[in-house]
């Protein structure tokens, strides 16, 4: 089972990015692809700042507002690439009080992984989904930060990284 990072979905839709074709092939070739609510939130955030795209889709499809256009695009993307949204459940008692499990795992992972918050949260969702019994073995991403900690991820989460070919700076 493959956890798909937002970066791959965005790469597949970005005509200016050299990884677009690779991203599309990866999304179309693999089976058993899943996403979290964090992926959906990141997609919504990116779309909210693509005003021209939202206006164009809203007008073409006769929708009421930008929010409906954004929801339509996200649902289309999930369906188009056969991405299954997995609901993460559960809270834990911690020293801080009650915490949503992905947040708790993100905090715990900071000890071993020196990653930025959003990267940590994606890994925390993978951990939470695995705790729910999902057999996730791969993280598909265009974000090189994950590749830099691949050894730790193998050890901590038993997940390998499939990275779209990095673009040389």
């Amino acid at each position, binding site marked *: 089972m493959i956890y798909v990072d937002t970066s791959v979905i965005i*790469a597949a839709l970005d005509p200016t990015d050299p990884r677009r074709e690779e991203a599309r092939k990866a999304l179309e070739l693999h089976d058993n692809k899943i996403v979290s609510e964090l992926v959906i939130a990141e997609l919504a955030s990116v779309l909210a700042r693509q005003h021209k795209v939202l206006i164009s889709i809203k007008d073409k499809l006769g929708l009421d507002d930008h929010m*409906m256009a954004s929801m339509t695009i996200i649902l289309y993307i999930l369906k188009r690439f056969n991405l299954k949204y997995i609901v993460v459940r559960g809270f834990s008692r911690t020293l801080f009080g009650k915490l949503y499990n992905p947040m708790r795992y993100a905090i715990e992972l900071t000890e071993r992984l020196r990653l930025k918050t959003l990267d940590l949260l994606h890994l925390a969702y993978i951990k939470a989904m695995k705790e729910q019994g999902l057999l996730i073995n791969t993280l598909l991403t265009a974000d090189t930060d994950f590749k830099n900690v691949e050894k730790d991820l193998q050890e901590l989460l038993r997940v390998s990284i499939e990275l779209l070919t990095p673009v040389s700076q």
Partner: protein
Amino acid sequence: MGSKVVSVRLDDELLKLVDELVRLGVYGSRSEALRDFIRIGARYARQIQMVAEAVNKLFELEKEEGDIPVKLGGALRQLLGERERF
């Protein structure tokens, strides 16, 4: 516009809410409250229907244009840049 009587089984919690709103004077009767609840729900359901139809239209557009009809120029650079900041 005609109307029909429909029998609906409600759980205790929902019925308690309806009765409380009637008691507070928000609605004149259980029927009035439930009609409003259904109207609010129907508005939301109509939006879901519109979005579902729009998703199908995007697939039709993809067939017509021969490509995914959503193009997010520069979005990946933006996303990865933001992740670096947080």
